[in-house]
Each structure stands twice: as C-alpha cells, then as structure tokens.
C-alpha cells in the first residue's frame, strides 16, 4: 500500500504551505529523486511521509491517519496489550531483566530499555498476537502466499499494509505492527512512556524466564543459520576464488 500523490500533495500543502519540494527534501532527508519518482508514479511511500512529518514536527501517526487507507488509525487510540508491549522489548533487554531480577529480588529495578524496533521485533509481535491461525487469515485477507508472509517475519520487515491487516485480523490496536516494523516509534504511536517496562515488570519470574528462554533459543537458531551460510560461502570462495 502506498499513498496517492494527490492526497499526499494536499497533505503536504497543509503542513508546509510555502515550502518548495526541494526544501521539504532537504529538511526531511528524503532523496529528491526518490520523492519525485514516487509522486510521478502516484505512489508515495509511507516512510517518506513519516520522514517529512518528523521534519515538520507533525506526529507521523496522525499524518498517516489523514489518508483513507489508514482510516483505522483515527478515533480513540486502542492501547497495546501487555503481550504486544513485551514483544517489543529486545531479546538482550529481556535477558538483562532476568539477570536484574535475580540480582535485585527486592524489586529495585533500573532497566533502561532500548528503543523500538529491535532485531526480531516483527516476528515477536506476530507471535505475541497469534492465536494459532493468524498467519493464514492475514495471507488470505491480503492475498499473499503464507510463505511470503513468513519471509517478511524472517527478514524483520513488514509493509504497513500487512501490519494493519495483521492487527485487524488479530483484533488488536492498529499501531502495534507499525511500531514493530519501525515505521513509527512507540511514542509516536501514543504508547505511554515506560509502558513496555511496566508490562515487562508485570511478568512473573517464571513467565519472564520462559519467554527469555524462547527468545534466546530463536536468537541462537538465527545465529547458527548465519554461521552455516557463512561457512558455505567461505567454502565456495576457498575452492574457487
């Protein structure tokens, strides 16, 4: 999904009425040729809109809500579930939390969480809201093959369209996927500051340890996969180059 040029230009005129496209690009860091191309094609990328909003001190989440395709973002914000919040805590922070709790059993916790998104945020978010059948429902609803959906999870990317469809099918607020994919930050999405840490602290010691264990397992698997891939590449080079 992308934003129609006409609506985008209307929106841009609204927030920066007397600014040339060149100035917009300069202050937002969006490449001029990229934006020009997107405008000509009639499809402006959401990431361009987000960069421009930030440059003009407009909340990108509200800016997105301007567009018809993102009507779901309008209205009373739906707060994230605890599972969603915890899914956006990085694996390393989660392991730190485990250590922290064992060292401070009396509850003096001073964890400083890294910002969103983290290296496996997309998969962890989908896992957190999955009732067992979510992936198939999303694939059917959007019309993509389930393995393509899985490929997005593996590469830790999620196009905004899929992010919205996933939260819709899971029945959670529309913001989670946009935060997990890194399009907007948790603050921009209206998540209260400290919400992730609070959700993490609400986990019992056992829940936290098990969840951290699952994350560590997945992390180890992905490291092994990378190492395996590296070995293969190295063997080809050793023999043929």
């Amino acid at each position: 999904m992308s934003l129609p040029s006409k609506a985008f230009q209307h929106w841009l005129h609204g927030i920066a009425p007397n600014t040339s496209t060149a100035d917009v690009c300069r202050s937002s860091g969006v490449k001029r040729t990229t934006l020009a191309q997107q405008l000509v094609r009639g499809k402006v990328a959401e990431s361009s809109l987000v960069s421009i909003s930030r440059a003009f001190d407009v909340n990108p989440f509200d800016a997105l809500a301007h567009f018809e395709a993102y009507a779901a973002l309008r209205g009373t914000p739906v707060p994230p579930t605890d599972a969603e919040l915890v899914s956006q805590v990085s694996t390393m922070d989660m392991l730190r939390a485990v250590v922290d709790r064992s060292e401070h059993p009396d509850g003096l916790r001073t964890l400083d969480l890294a910002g969103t998104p983290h290296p496996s945020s997309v998969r962890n978010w989908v896992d957190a809201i999955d009732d067992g059948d979510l992936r198939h429902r999303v694939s059917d609803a959007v019309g993509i093959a389930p393995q393509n959906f899985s490929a997005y999870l593996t590469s830790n990317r999620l196009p905004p369209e899929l992010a919205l469809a996933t939260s819709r099918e899971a029945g959670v607020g529309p913001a989670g996927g946009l935060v997990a994919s890194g399009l907007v930050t948790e603050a921009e999405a209206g998540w209260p500051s400290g919400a992730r840490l609070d959700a993490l602290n609400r986990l019992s010691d056992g829940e936290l340890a098990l969840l951290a264990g699952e994350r560590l397992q997945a992390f180890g698997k992905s490291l092994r996969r990378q190492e395996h891939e590296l070995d293969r590449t190295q063997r080809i080079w050793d023999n043929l180059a």
Partner: protein
Amino acid sequence: MTDVLAWATFGVCLALTGIRIPSALRGENRMMFVLFALISLDILLSLEVPYEFLDGLMGGFNVCNLLLRFLLYGTFLLMGIKVARAFGSRGGERAVRGPWGIAVLAITAVLTAVLFFSMDTSGSTVGLEDLDPEPALDLYSAFGRAYPGYVSACLVPGIWRSVRSSGPALLRAASGMLLAGLALLIVSQVFPLIPDSNAWLRPLINYSAALASALGLGGIWLSKTIARRTVRAIPSDQR
C-alpha cells in the same frame, strides 16, 4: 556471428586466466589458474585458425582434435572436483572422482581414442566438420559431449542449492551463471536431434555454455574480492 562469440569466449577466458596470475604466483589456489588456462586452451583449439595451424604442425590428420577431447576430459575432471567440493556436494564429488566417475572417464577416453584411430581423419578440419559422415564419427562426437555432460549433471544439484540459499547476491548470481553454463552442456547431449538446417544452434550452445561457465567462475572470484574490500573498508570508516 558464431566466430565473434567464439573469439569473445576465448578473450574472456584468457583475461580470467591473466587475472589469476598474481594469486597463482602467491601460491593461492593454483588449481584455479590451471583450470582457467585449460579452458582457454580448449577454446583456442576449437577456433579454426589456431586449430588448422597446430594440427598442421602435428601431421594434418586431426590428432589435434583428439588432443582437444582429452584436454576437455581433463578440464571437466578438474572442474568437477573443485566445484563439487566448493558447493559442499559430497554426492557430486563422489560421482566425479569416485570409482564410478573414474570408470566413466576411462571408458569414454578409451572409446574416444579407439574410434578416432578407426576413422580416416586426414585433412585438418576444425571440429572434424569436413570429414565424411560415418557412424563412427557421430559416436566419436557423442562421447566428446557425454563426459562433460556427465560431470555437469553431477554438479547441478549442489550448485542449485547454493543459488537458492541466501548468500551474497553477486555470489548467487555468479553461481547461477555457472549453473546455466553446465545446464547448456547437458542440453548439448541432444545435438543429433537438431536438424542440419539449424546446425548453427550447436556452436551457439557450446560457446554459450563455455562463456557462461567461465563468467560464473570469474564472478565467484569477483564476489570474494568485493567482499574482502568491503570488510577492509569498514574499520577505516569507523576510525
């Protein structure tokens, strides 16, 4: 048209051989230098002018073509072993250098020689094109294609697995190129089915196969060189 392709292929192979000289002098992977030199020599002996000159020196009864066949068998044995090992294909390596592979090579080599000497081959002609057609000549040509085809078939599955995996993009593209070249050599087994009116297809397939394989092997080298430079560039950027 075919001439241009043939000479271009020769030029590419010669250039790739040249590129490997420095690393061969340093003692890195000398076999690859030998392999590229062999491929260049194979192509040189398939070109009309050098072929007729060299065959003239050797008595003018096309023994140069027999030499070319044996050089080709050697090239494919070497390439088969290196490529199978590189792509981690144990089965492929066994099929090329195991008892089976050696038996296939020995039978092919012996029959190639026997068939050659059973024919009247006087009068230098590249690819034996101007010799009188006879069943022995067809069989001789078929054996010449069979061993490269056999080795290619042994290598294709291992390379295909790598092309589909998620290594560096250039490495995968180069592996794909090598795969395409080997696939064409398998296709070349059906040459007898190509009608004479479309005879131009045969050299086209042969040289495309050689060019694609050489470019694939060259691309693998390039991907390593680029990866090394990138790795080296990172620390200097961070300084």
